[in-house]
C-alpha cells in the first residue's frame, strides 16, 4: 500500500540528554527518520532537549524545539503546532514514556493526534510486564517464571517459591536502571526496594535467573500488511546476566545451528505479529546451551541501541524504514538503498563478522565498581568488521583507545593461576583479558567455559590469539607467520613488541610481500547483487574490491570514536557538519570512524565510509589506497587530533591549523611564549615530571593549585591540591594512567569562567558568542552550567575576551576553530586553556546564534574567507534569546562513583533551556535535566565550614521560598545562629534520625552538599551516593544551588514558553 493520505504533520520526540543507556544511537535513528519523513514531503516538528544532536538542526526538521522533554511541555507543543500524528518509537524509552502518558490521559485523542508506527496499545502490551506475560502465554512463547510485584514482601515470598538466584527488573526504566540479580533475601531486599523506587509505576518483575544461558537478540521489522523480516541476529559473548549494552556482542550469531537460529527467528516474528508492531523491534532471548529450551527476556517495540548496531552491522537502515512504514509503505515497496535493486523485504546476508565492545567510564571513575550486571554502565561502544572473529575482536579492542592493542593487561601478567581462577568468576570489564591470561597460564578452555559459561567456541578463538602471540614470541618471523598474524589483525606494534623486530621493518616486510589491507564492501547481500553504497571495512588476505576515483579532490575527515565522558556526541555533530560542508564545496569526502551509534557512520553521510579503528596503522592503509588531498582532524575530538603527527608522516596534508601550532597551544613553554608575545596573562604555572618537582612548583606558586596531565580530554586526571599530601596523591593517580606526558601545576584562581568558540580564516576572527559559566572555576567546563549570552560580564571584560581571542587565534595561526577558556578574577581576564579545534559547545552555540559554525570553519579551512561566506569578523551581536546549557549525569548507574564536581569531567550529556527571559531559560534547563521542583519542600544541607558564610543568603532564599531546611550539626548550628529556621538531623553514623532516615521517607526534594575538597571523610561520600541512588537531586556547588533557587523564585506560573529554533 502506498503512503497514507492522512499524515501531513508529524511530531517526532527525541530521547533527550546522553545518559548511560541512552546515547547517540537515538540521534542516529531520529536524524534518519526525520530525513525519511521530509523526503516524503511531511512537515516535521521535533522536540529534543539535547542541543548536541544533529536531529535538532534546523535543516533536519521544519520546526525544532530544544525544550524539556516533559509531558506538560509536549502537551503545550501539540497545542501550538497542532501535528496530526506523533511518532514516538524513535526517541528511546523517554519518548515512549511521554507518548504513553499523553495517550493514557486521552490528550492525543482530544487533540486529534494519531500515533503512527507502533501504536500505544502495542507499546503498552510490550512494556507492561503483566500484559506482556499474558500475551506470551497466549501465543505460547516461553518466558522465565516471573511475577510482577509492588512490594518487597511479595518479592521475597515469590523468590522463596521459585528459588534463588532471581533477577529483579523494574518496569519502565531505561538501561535496566535499578535491576540486578539477587542470590539471597538480603540482596533481594536491597535491589528490590531500589528498583521499586526507580520504576515509573513502582513495579518490578521478579524472575527466575537463567544466568549462564546464551543471550541472543533479533532485530525484526514488520509493516502494516503483516510482512515481517529479520534484519539481523546478534549473540552476546557474555551469557545472560550482563546487560546487552555491557556485553561484547557479535553479529551474526556464531554458535547457533540453523535449528536454533530459525527457532528463535520464528519466535521473534511470531511475537511482533502478535503485538502488531509497525516498524522496528528488538527481541532478546535466553537460550539454554544444552537444549532447544529458550525464553523471551525482553521486547523493545522501538528502535534501540541494538537496532543501531544491527543497522551498521548489516547496512540495513532500520530507523529510516521504520519511518517509511509509519507512513504506510510496505517493506516490498521500499528500495534497498545499498543495492539500489532489491527491496527492503529481504533479510541481509552478512559475509563478515561484526564485533561490538562497550566503552566503560571506569577510567574516569577509578573508584567505582567495575562489576557488570543487569545495570548498564557503558557510555558508548565501538564496532569492528572483519572476515574472521579474531580479527573483528582485535580491531574493536584497539578502537576503544585505551592504549591496549591485544588481550594483554600489564596488571595481570604476574598473577598466578589461583588468582586467575578466582578472577574468572568476576564479571567485569576485564573478563576477556582475564580469559586470555588464564589461557597463557595453561588453564584449559573447558575449565574457563565451566567458570564463565562463555561458549567454548569464543574461548577457543581467544586461545587462537594467544597461540599466535606465543608463536610471534618464540618463532622466527616468517612471511607465513606474519600473514597469519595480520589476518587475525595483530597490529604491527604488537607484532613488534612480541617478535622484537622493529615496526618499520615489519611494515617494510609487509610491503615487500604484499601483506596489506584489502577493502571490502558492506552490501547487505554477501555480494549476490552489485552494491552502490560505499561502506567499507578492511581484511588481510583477500582481494581489494574498491577503486578510488583518482580525479576527484578528496578530503578525509577523522571521526571521534566511541562516546565517552569528555568526548561525546558533539564531536560527531561536528564531523558530520564538516562532511556536509565539504560536499557542498565540491569535495569528495571520506570518513573514518568506528562508533556504530552515530550519524557519521551512516553510509549516506560521506561519499565513502571506512568503518575502521582510528589508529595510525589502520588509517594508513586507507590513506595508501585513497591518497586524499588532505585530512581534517579538528572536528573529531582528541581521537582525531592524536593522529595529526602520524598523518603528516604519511604525507597527508593537514588542512586547517597546522600540527605545529596545535603543539604550540599544548606545550607549556611554547604557549607561555605566545601568551607573553600577546600580552595575555594566565594563572602562574609550571611543567613538572616528578613528585618532588611538583611539590616544589606548588609551593613556589602557592596553594591551591591545579594538578593535571597534559594532552588529555575532559580534564581527565585533573585535581585541585590544597597541600603537599594532595599533590603526592594526585601525581600517583596520574602516573597510573598517563605515563608518557608531563604534568602541569597551575595556580588555582576561584574566579568566573568564560568560554569562547571562534572561527579564524587566517586573516580575521569571527566570534559567534561568549559563554559564561555559572559555577566558579574549578568545576570542569563540561560539568558547568553555561549561559549565552553572558549575563554578568562587564562590557569591558567582554571586549578584552574578544581581543584576546583574536590575538591568540592569529598568534597560533589558527585556520578553522579555536576554543578558549578564560577566568575572570577581580575583573582581570586570564587564559586557562586554548584548544585549536572544535569543542563540546559548538553544536549549542551554533543553534542559538544561528551561525553554522562548523560549516563556516570548514569552508575557511578550504580557503574561503569569512567575509566571502557572508559573515563579518568580530563578535556577532548578541541574540535576544538566552540559552542555558546544563550538564546531565549518570551517577546512579555507576556504583561507587564520587559525584562531587571538580576539574575532572563527569557528566555524560547536556540539555538546553532557551527563552527570552534568562530566569526562565535557567528554569527550563533545570526541568530538562529531569528534576521536578518544588514538590515536597524539604531540603537537606551539609556545607563545609569555609562556605557557610556564602551559603547563608542562599539558605534564606530557600527558606523564604517555602522550603524546610534540614541540616547536620555544623550547618544546623550555623543557620540557627544566623536566624535561619532549620531542623536538625543526625549524621549517618548515629542510630536514629539520620540523614538516611530522612532520605528514605521520600519527602526530600533536594540535597545541597558542599564537600570539603579531598577530605578522606567517607561520610560525605556516602551521603552523596545515597542521595543519587535514592533519586534525590543533589548539587555540590553553591553556584548551582543559587542558580536553582533564583530560577524557582522567578518561575512563571503555568507553562513555559516555546522557542522554535528553526525560526531564530
Amino acid at each position, binding site marked *: 500500500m502506498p503512503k497514507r493520505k492522512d499524515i501531513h504533520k508529524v511530531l517526532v520526540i527525541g530521547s533527550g540528554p546522553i545518559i548511560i543507556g541512552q546515547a547517540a544511537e537515538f540521534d542516529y535513528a531520529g536524524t534518519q527518520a526525520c530525513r525519511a519523513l521530509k523526503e516524503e514531503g511531511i512537515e516535521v516538528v521535533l522536540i529534543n532537549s539535547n542541543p548536541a544532536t544533529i536531529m535538532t538542526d534546523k535543516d533536519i526538521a521544519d520546526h525544532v524545539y530544544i525544550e524539556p522533554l516533559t509531558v506538560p511541555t509536549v502537551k503545550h507543543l501539540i497545542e501550538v503546532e497542532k501535528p496530526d500524528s506523533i511518532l514516538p518509537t524513535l526517541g528511546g524509552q523517554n519518548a515512549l514514556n511521554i507518548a504513553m502518558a499523553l495517550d493514557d490521559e486521552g490528550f492525543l485523542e482530544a487533540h486529534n493526534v494519531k500515533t503512527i508506527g507502533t501504536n500505544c496499545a502495542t507499546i503498552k502490551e510490550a512494556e507492561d510486564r503483566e500484559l506482556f506475560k499474558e500475551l506470551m502465554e497466549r501465543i505460547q512463547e516461553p518466558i522465565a517464571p516471573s511475577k510482577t510485584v509492588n512490594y518487597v514482601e511479595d518479592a521475597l515470598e515469590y523468590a522463596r517459591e521459585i528459588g534463588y538466584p532471581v533477577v529483579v527488573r523494574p518496569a519502565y526504566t531505561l538501561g535496566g536502571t535499578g535491576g540486578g540479580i539477587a542470590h539471597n533475601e538480603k540482596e533481594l531486599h536491597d535491589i528490590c526496594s531500589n528498583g521499586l523506587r526507580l520504576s515509573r509505576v513502582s513495579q518490578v518483575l521478579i524472575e527466575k535467573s537463567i544466568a549462564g544461558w546464551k543471550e541472543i537478540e533479533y532485530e525484526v521489522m514488520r509493516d502494516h500488511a503483516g510482512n515481517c523480516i529479520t534484519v539481523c541476529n546478534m549473540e552476546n559473548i557474555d551469557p545472560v546476566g550482563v546487560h546487552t549494552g555491557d556485553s561484547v556482542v557479535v553479529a551474526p550469531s556464531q554458535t547457533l545451528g540453523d535449528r536454533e537460529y530459525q527457532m528463535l527467528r520464528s519466535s521473534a516474528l511470531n511475537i511482533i505479529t502478535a503485538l502488531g508492531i509497525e516498524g522496528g523491534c528488538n527481541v532478546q532471548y535466553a537460550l539454554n546451551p544444552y537444549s532447544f529450551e529458550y525464553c523471551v527476556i525482553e521486547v523493545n517495540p522501538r528502535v534501540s541501541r541494538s537496532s543501531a548496531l544491527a543497522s551498521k552491522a548489516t547496512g540495513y537502515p532500520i530507523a529510516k524504514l521504520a519511518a517509511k512504514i509509519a507512513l504506510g509503505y510496505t517493506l516490498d515497496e521500499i528500495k534497498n538503498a545499498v543495492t539500489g535493486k532489491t527491496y527492503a523485504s529481504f*533479510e541481509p546476508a552478512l559475509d563478515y563478522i561484526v564485533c561490538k565492545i562497550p566503552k566503560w567510564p571506569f577510567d574516569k571513575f577509578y573508584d567505582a565498581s567495575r562489576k557488570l550486571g543487569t545495570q548498564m554502565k557503558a557510555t558508548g561502544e565501538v564496532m569492528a568488521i572483519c572476515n574472521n572473529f579474531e580479527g573483528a575482536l582485535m580491531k574493536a579492542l584497539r578502537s576503544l583507545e585505551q592504549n591496549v592493542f591485544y588481550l594483554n593487561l600489564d596488571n595481570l601478567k604476574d598473577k598466578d593461576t589461583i588468582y586467575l581462577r578466582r578472577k574468572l568468576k568476576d564479571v567485569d570489564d576485564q573478563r576477556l583479558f582475564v580469559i586470555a591470561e588464564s589461557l597463557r597460564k595453561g588453564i584449559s578452555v573447558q575449565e574457563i567455559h565451566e567458570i564463565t559459561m562463555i561458549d567454548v567456541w569464543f574461548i577457543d578463538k581467544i586461545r587462537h590469539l594467544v597461540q599466535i602471540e606465543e608463536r610471534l614470541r618464540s618463532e622466527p618471523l616468517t612471511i607465513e607467520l606474519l600473514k597469519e598474524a595480520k589476518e587475525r589483525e595483530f597490529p604491527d606494534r604488537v607484532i613488534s613488541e612480541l617478535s622484537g623486530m622493529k615496526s618499520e621493518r615489519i611494515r617494510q616486510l609487509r610491503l615487500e610481500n604484499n601483506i596489506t589491507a584489502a577493502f571490502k564492501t558492506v552490501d547487505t547481500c554477501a555480494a549476490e547483487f552489485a552494491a552502490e553504497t560505499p561502506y567499507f571495512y578492511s581484511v588481510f588476505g583477500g582481494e581489494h574490491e574498491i577503486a578510488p576515483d583518482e580525479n576527484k579532490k578528496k578530503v578525509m575527515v577523522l571521526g571521534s570514536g566511541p562516546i565517552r565522558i569528555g568526548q561525546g556526541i558533539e564531536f560527531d555533530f561536528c564531523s558530520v557538519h564538516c562532511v556536509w560542508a565539504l560536499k557542498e564545496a565540491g569535495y569528495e569526502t571520506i570518513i573514518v570512524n568506528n562508533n556504530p551509534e552515530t550519524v557519521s557512520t551512516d553510509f549516506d553521510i560521506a561519499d565513502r565510509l571506512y568503518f575502521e579503528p582510528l589508529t595510525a596503522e589502520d588509517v594508513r592503509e586507507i590513506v595508501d589506497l585513497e591518497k586524499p588531498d588532505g585530512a581534517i582532524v579538528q572536528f573529531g575530538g582528541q581521537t582525531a587530533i592524536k593522529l595529526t603527527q602520524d598523518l603528516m608522516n604519511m604525507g597527508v596534508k593537514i588542512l586547517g591549523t597546522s600540527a605545529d601550532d596545535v603543539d604550540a597551544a599544548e606545550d607549556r613553554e611554547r604557549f607561555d611564549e605566545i601568551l607573553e608575545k600577546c600580552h595575555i596573562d594566565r594563572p602562574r604555572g609550571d611543567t613538572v615530571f616528578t613528585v618532588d618537582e611538583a611539590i616544589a612548583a606548588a609551593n613556589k606558586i602557592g596553594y591551591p593549585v591545579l594538578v593535571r596531565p597534559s594532552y588529555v580530554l575532559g580534564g581527565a586526571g585533573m585535581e585541585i591540591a590544597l597541600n603537599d599530601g594532595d599533590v603526592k596523591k594526585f601525581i600517583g593517580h596520574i602516573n597510573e594512567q598517563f605515563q608518557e606526558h608531563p604534568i602541569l601545576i597551575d595556580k588555582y584562581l576561584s574566579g568566573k569562567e568564560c568560554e569562547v568558540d571562534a572561527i579564524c580564516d587566517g586573516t580575521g576572527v569571527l566570534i559567534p558568542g561568549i559563554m559564561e559559566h555559572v559555577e566558579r572555576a574549578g568545576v570542569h567546563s563540561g560539568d558547568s552550567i553555561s549561559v549565552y549570552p553572558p549575563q554578568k560580564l562587564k562590557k569591558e571584560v567582554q571586549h578584552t575576551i574578544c581581543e584576546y581571542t583574536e590575538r591568540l587565534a592569529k598568534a597560533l595561526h589558527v585556520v578553522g576553530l579555536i576554543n578558549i577558556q578564560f577566568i575572570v578574577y577581580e575583573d582581570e581576564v586570564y587564559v586557562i586553556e586554548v584548544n585549536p579545534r572544535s569543542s563540546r559547545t559548538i553544536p549549542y552555540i551554533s543553534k542559538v546564534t544561528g551561525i553554522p559554525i562548523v560549516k563556516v570553519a570548514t569552508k575557511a579551512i578550504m580557503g574561503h574567507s569569512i567575509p566571502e561566506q557572508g559573515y563579518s569578523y568580530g563578535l556577532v551581536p548578541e541574540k535576544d534569546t538566552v540559552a542555558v546549557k546544563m550538564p546531565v549525569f549518570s551517577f546512579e548507574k555507576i556504583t561507587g562513583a564520587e559525584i562531587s564536581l571538580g576539574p575532572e569531567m563527569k557528566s555524560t550529556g547536556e540539555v538546553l533551556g532557551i527563552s527570552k527571559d534568562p530566569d526562565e531559560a535557567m528554569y527550563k534547563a533545570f526541568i530538562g535535566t529531569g528534576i521536578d521542583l518544588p514538590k515536597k519542600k524539604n531540603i537537606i544541607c551539609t556545607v563545609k565550614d569555609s562556605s557557610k558564610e556564602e551559603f547563608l543568603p542562599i539558605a534564606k532564599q530557600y527558606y523564604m521560598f517555602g522550603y524546610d531546611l534540614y541540616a547536620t550539626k555544623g550547618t544546623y548550628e550555623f543557620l540557627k545562629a544566623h536566624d535561619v529556621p532549620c531542623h536538625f538531623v543526625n549524621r549517618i553514623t548515629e542510630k536514629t534520625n539520620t540523614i538516611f532516615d530522612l532520605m528514605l521517607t521520600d519527602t526530600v526534594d533536594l540535597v545541597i552538599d558542599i564537600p570539603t575538597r579531598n577530605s578522606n571523610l567517607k561520610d560525605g561520600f556516602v551521603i552523596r551516593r545515597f542521595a543519587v541512588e535514592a533519586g534525590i537531586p543533589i548539587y555540590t556547588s553553591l553556584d548551582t544551588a543559587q542558580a536553582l533557587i533564583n530560577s524557582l523564585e522567578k518561575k512563571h506560573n503555568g507553562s513555559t514558553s516555546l522557542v522554535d529554533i528553526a525560526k531564530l
Partner: protein
Amino acid sequence: MKAYLILEDGHVFEGVSFGAEKEVISEFVFNTSMTGYTEILTDPSYAGQSVVMTYPLIGNYGVSYKDQEAAHPFVEGFVVHELSRLGSNFRMNMNLNDYMIENNIPGIQGVDTRAITKIIRQHGCMNGMITTQKYNVDEVLDKIKAFKVEGVVQRCTCDAPYKLGRGDFHVALYDFGAKRNIAKELVKRGCEVTVVPASTPASEIINGNYDGIMLSNGPGDPAENVEIVKEIKELAASGMPIFAICLGHQLMALAHDFKTEKLKFGHHGANHPVRDAHTGRVYISTQNHNYVIKEDSIDPEVAKVWFTNVNDGTIEGMEYINENIRTVQFHPEASAGPHDTAYLFDEFIKMMGGHKNA
C-alpha cells in the same frame, strides 16, 4: 596441505585442503545462508555442484546427524573462507572436517570467498575444479569446461519405495532427490508418506490408494528429465491433488508444455523474498535453484503465477487453472532457512481434504 580452486574462466585460488583429499570437477554455485551448512551439504539438489559459502566461518557448531537432509552429502566439493578450529554445540556428533573425510567430500578453505562469489555473480555459475595438485591451468581447463551436470536425478532418487509416518492422508512423494524435511513436514501433519523412486510410472500412483502427490526438489536441468515429465503429464491429468517443490515445480511446468531456462547464477540462500499474488504478502524463503520457468512460455489459460521473487521478478510458484495443482520454486520445508512458508504444507493438506471429501 595446499589446495587449489580452478575456475573455468582461468581464475585460480590457492587455499588449504580440508575434508577428503580428492580431486573434483563440478559446477560451482554460491550460497548466502549464514547457518545450515550441514543441510546444504546433504541437500541432493546440489548433486553435480560444489558450493561456495559466502558466510566466512563454517563448521562453528560441528555436524549433527539429525540435521542431514539425506543419508549422506551430495555436494561435490565445499569452498569456505575459514573452517572453524572446533565445533561447539550440544548436539554435535563430529566436527565438519571429519564428516567430510568420512563422506569423501573434498573442501578448500582459506580462499577469498567474496571474490569468488563476485566472479560467479558477474560471469554466471561456471565449472571448476578443487585439487591438491599444482597444475598448469591450461592443461586442465578443457577438462573442466567439458563437465556437464547430467543424470543427477537418477543418482539421487531412492531405489525402492518406502513408507514414513501414519495418518489420515496417504501421500505419494516422488523422490527426485527429496530433502528429508519434506516428508517430515507431511508426517508432522498427519500424513502417511510413501516415498517413491523418480521412475515410478504414473499409473502405479493413480491406481494406488493415495490422497495426494508431492513432487520433490532435485538436482540438474529439468528439461533433461523427458521420461519423468511424461509420467507427470499423466499424474496431472488424473485430477489428484498435487503439490510440487523446486525441481517438481519445474517438471510440472514442462508437463504443461511450458519452458524452463537457466538463471545466470541461480538463487541459493535463505533470504529470498517471495510475494503471494493473492494476498500481496511477502515471505522470506529458502531457495536453491539454477533454473526457472520462462514467463512468456506460460499459457494463461492453463496456469497463472502464484508467487514471484521480489528481487528479480522471476516465477516462484504456479497455480494450475481447473487442476488441483500448486507448485513452488522455493522451499517451504526450509532446512536450512526460515519457516515462513511452512504453512504451504497445510494448504496441501487442505487440497487433499477437499479432494477426499468430494
